[in-house]
């Protein structure tokens, strides 16, 4: 027993003998995400922001060159000013709140519907046979194309926006849930059966945690799609929201407004993705087990 435990602590055999990074094995950075030359430099952290600044300067040069009219390529300065104005009078917050609300409710509704239908499809061949053709057909229809229809039916308000958002989110989440639940090892199902677990226990102790990695992967895709859904819905018909701002700016040749709204949307989408990634790290911490330990 003792020899076994000591062997596990160091695990010499788990590490591939000839990794390109074996020279500086003192550090244990994940090999896949680092390039050998750039690993140790503190200035590496500045590379990405530096690249951003470079792009900004390029943009400014193009805008100042006079090659394009101001309403086609406004300067970064003009965009920043417009953004500042919007933020100052509170309208940016108001429009952002409208879009965010549509996004969050749509995401939650879509993800929920997708998870439960995906679960049922994975569990029952009958349900799968009945529902799958329609769900695939639904996915084949571009949501943008049915957005006007939904607005005719549900009015131009909040409901139609949420529905469009939820529809867009639905499919990737559904596919991932079906995969996640179907891929649960049959040996673990046997184990639960041998322990006489109830269907509810099997769901809570096995199916939910076992499918979680793939389900969360779906959630991350859905999080970014939900923003697209809300904006598409606002394009079709809206009187407020960031999508409306973009549309309005385009109509009034207020290009700085368009760009300012696009940047704000990007921030919202990134924040949502960040939230999903944080959830992933929180719920799937066990996935990192056994990686750092054996280095």
């Amino acid at each position, binding site marked *: 027993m003792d020899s076994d*435990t000591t062997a596990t602590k160091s695990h010499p055999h788990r590490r591939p003998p000839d990794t390109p990074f074996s020279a500086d094995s003192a550090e244990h950075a994940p090999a896949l995400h680092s390039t050998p030359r750039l690993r140790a430099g503190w200035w590496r952290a500045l590379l990405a922001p530096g690249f951003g600044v470079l792009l900004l300067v390029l943009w400014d040069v193009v805008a100042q060159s006079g090659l394009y009219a101001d309403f086609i390529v406004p300067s970064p300065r003009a965009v920043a000013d417009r953004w500042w104005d919007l933020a100052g009078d509170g309208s940016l917050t108001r429009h952002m709140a409208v879009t965010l609300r549509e996004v969050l409710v749509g995401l939650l509704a879509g993800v929920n519907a997708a998870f439960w239908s995906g679960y049922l499809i994975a569990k029952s061949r009958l349900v799968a046979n009945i529902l799958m053709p329609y769900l695939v057909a639904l996915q084949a229809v571009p949501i943008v194309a049915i957005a006007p229809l939904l607005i005719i039916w549900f009015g131009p308000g909040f409901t139609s926006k949420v529905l469009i958002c939820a529809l867009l989110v639905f499919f990737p989440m559904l596919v991932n849930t079906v995969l996640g639940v179907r891929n649960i090892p049959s040996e673990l199902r046997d184990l639960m*059966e041998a*322990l006489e677990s109830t269907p509810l226990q099997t769901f809570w102790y*096995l199916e939910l945690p076992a499918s979680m990695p793939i389900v969360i992967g779906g959630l991350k895709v859905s999080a970014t799609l939900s923003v697209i859904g809300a904006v598409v819905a606002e394009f079709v018909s809206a009187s407020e929201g960031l999508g409306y701002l973009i549309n309005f700016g385009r109509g009034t040749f207020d290009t700085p407004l368009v760009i300012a709204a696009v940047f704000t949307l990007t921030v919202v989408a990134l924040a949502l993705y960040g939230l999903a990634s944080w959830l992933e790290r929180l719920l799937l911490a*066990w996935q990192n087990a056994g990686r750092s330990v054996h280095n």
Partner: protein
Amino acid sequence: MSGNPSNAPILAAHHICHTYSGPSGDVVALDGVTLDLSRESFVCLVGPSGCGKSTLLRILAGLLKPSRGQATLDSHLITRAQRRIGVIFQKANLMPWRTVYGNLALPLQLIGVPANEQARRTQAMLELTGLNRFAGAYPAELSGGMAQRVAIGRALIHDPEVLLLDEPFGALDALTREQMGEELLRIWARHRKTVLMVTHSIPEAVLLADRVLVMSPRPGQVVLDLPILLPRPRTLDLLHQPEFVALTERLRHHIRPN
């Protein structure tokens, strides 16, 4: 420990036949297997690959319905899996999202054992299996031997009367395998269970069992029932004793007649 209420077999199989239907036709895996296990005995089942050993074990565990024949536990027909029968699979089959502690405690949680009782029994099992220092480790951090030890602990923790083991050490290296065999004997000596273990290894079977059953190649039938009367406690030193070698030779001869 001794002085059983009855000598009636606790687990029995009566004329079990099983046929798998596949795309390339039907395969007869078991053809009339009859056996019985007396209480607190340790029985090993050996035979060539594909003789239906695992199928038989799944039927006895209630995880598979036989095509014909019946399995009984205390003379009651086994129609579905039950907690009185603990199963240890070929792979450790741990839940990767649960720590060693969490994996050990799973059966108690499912049964609904009170929290403090759960903690006490899980702690005791950690000690019995020598996994104390690894209570908080995830399965990915364990060696194969340690993972299998968790699996054994998990199968024992809710105190089933019968333990079915399907080549539990098959995936381990030879050294760890011998060590785990000894450890299983040590645990069995403390928690007298009725054990039926499927194994590929004849020395392992002779070392562990009171009785070794030999199955024929497919379709599987029990062709030899050999009592192992070697004294207990047994250790690995036994491997080189003449009686031991004679027994393994005899078994080997029955598995491969030529």
